[in-house]
């Protein structure tokens, strides 16, 4: 094809747009990491959580989470006797600095760490009008902040309250399961600092991962199973009052 001046004028902007998308689709360099060989999840062992807030602080530090917003947080439940449908729940500053003592009135107290459930059928990715939020081939729900419109439909669609609008970027923000770490063979910041091992990163595609043995031998639940989102954060020892 002969390249005339007119054709060149048409081709150049088209090529520039195409190149922009090629660059946007290039994943961060992780030479030995194979996307299709992993399917990431997390295990939360509720009886082990002491509500120290280390995970919330580590997450905020690692991911530059703005003050007042949370990629992960801890809730403290207090269930008085049989009132399983009306638990008292609190999460001061997302549990970042721990919790004040709770008066002992005979009920039970426990901590529930929360984060994005990295749902396999996530409503947030379904509703995104431009596909800026997506599930990666290794099972992590991510947001492309260079593409997100900031319409906040995904925030409304998340049944677990895991998303927020980052005031610095004006785009949707959420837990990335420390994607920049796990693709390099590290664990997440929250798992790394948990002093009791209440949080465990799990790779469901790795047959040697201890998650498989754990799931076989424990009564494990997910949050709001009736939402049918394919949540991949598994909770051991979760009370029926948790929502």
């Amino acid at each position, binding site marked *: 094809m002969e390249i005339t001046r007119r054709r060149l004028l048409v081709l150049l902007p088209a090529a520039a747009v195409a190149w922009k998308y090629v660059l946007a689709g290039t994943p961060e360099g992780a030479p030995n990491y194979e996307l299709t060989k992993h399917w990431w999840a997390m295990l939360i062992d509720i009886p082990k959580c002491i509500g120290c807030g280390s995970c919330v602080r580590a997450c905020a530090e690692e991911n530059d989470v703005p003050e007042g*917003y*949370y990629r992960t*947080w801890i*809730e403290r439940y207090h269930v008085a006797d049989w009132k399983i*449908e009306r*638990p*008292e*729940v*609190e*999460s001061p*500053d*997302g549990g970042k600095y721990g919790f004040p003592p709770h008066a002992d009135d005979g009920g039970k107290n426990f901590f529930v760490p*929360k984060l994005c459930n990295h749902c396999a059928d996530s*409503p947030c*990715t*379904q*509703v*995104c*009008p*431009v*596909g800026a939020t997506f599930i990666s081939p290794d099972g992590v729900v991510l947001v492309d902040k260079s*593409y*997100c*419109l*900031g*319409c*906040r*439909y995904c*925030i*409304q*669609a*998340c*049944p*677990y*309250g*895991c*998303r*927020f*609008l980052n005031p610095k*970027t*004006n*785009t949707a923000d959420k837990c990335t399961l420390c994607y920049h770490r796990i693709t390099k063979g590290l664990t997440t910041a929250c798992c790394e600092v948990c002093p009791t091992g209440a949080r465990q990163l799990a790779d469901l595609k790795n047959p040697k991962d201890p998650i498989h043995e754990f799931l076989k031998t424990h009564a494990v639940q997910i949050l709001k199973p009736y*939402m049918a989102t394919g949540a991949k954060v598994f909770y051991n020892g979760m009370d029926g009052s948790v*929502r």
Partner: protein
Amino acid sequence: MQIPVEGFMYPNEVELQWSILIVLYPFITGLVAGAFILASLERVFRVEAVKPTYRLALLTALAFLLVAPLPLQLHLGHPERSLEMYLTPHRSSAMAMFGFVYLWYLMAVLLLEIWLDYRHDIVVRSQTEKGWKRLVYRGLTLGSTNVSERSLHVDERLGYFITLIGIPSAFLLHGYVGFIFGSVKANPWWSSPLMPIVFIFSAMVSGIAAVMLLYMLSTRLRGQRIDMRCLDKIAQYLLYTFVIDFSLEMMDLLQRIYEADESFRSLDFMVHTRLWVSQVIVQILLGTVTPIALLGLMQVLKVTEAARRWIYALAGGLTVIGIFAMRWNVVIGGQLFSKSFLGYTTYKMAFATREGLLPAIILMILPFIILWVLVKLLPPWPESASVPSGATPVHGTS
């Protein structure tokens, strides 16, 4: 800014994501759809009595439709990326279809219908007006200057066909807005298959009421007599659609009360506290029951024309306020409770910020300015149209 919270909210839920601008979006599109459906009564269903409002209803629909995307645009974190919805739409997203539904309605239905309806007037004016006006009308002809009888007949047939397509399109436009909310399964206040249907009927109610008020106001401003046959008919249609709309909403409410699922206690508490004024007082009592009662009474009582005009104006005004309150209660109410059903947050509306009250007020004034320009450019009534002799509007009012 500290936001008052009662009970427990997930920490990221405390701040509301969708503001008053998102309240305006379904309110404005509702007016568009409703106004168009009123216009189609004359065109498709041959309800001759409402003819005086035909063109006004179309221009009202256009004026509001032109403003409809602006609140969304202002609300976006990155408005400069909004075109991506057209370029790379995510097919599974209800919201991604907005641009296409909007464009379809604007370009394929409304603009085309208005143009066909006014084409004869435009051609005549492009030949008779002077100066810049002549240029404007010449541009509006789009090069089509044939106003022979046969050509006008084609316009008429095509206009009828477009209105036929326009009715389901208007339903699509607003049913779709209802679907955006109704399909959010995470939110029990929104999630309901009835939502699109309720939105369609409430759209018709608000659009009919708005055109009725605009017709009364514009006729008064022009010093003309209000056609009572027309006004009575519009009020009658308003009553019928309102009764259907209210019944649907009550069915939804009864179902929720009787089922009393896990979200019920939380939502019930919210209605009795945070939404008591906006929902029970403004939306239901003042904005629905009162206008239905007033319009209903007009069907059974013999009332003087002057009194009827005042009552229709009151009922119409209350209706528009009631439908606005309904949009408010859907959008804002749906974000005041926690998805844990254990607590409530508060909506703090700012004033002169991007998503504050001031831009909302400006956005509500803007359609009226656009409508004023449209009415000047394309007069919907014959007496002030001053169309030169020999040019009879295709859809002139009587």
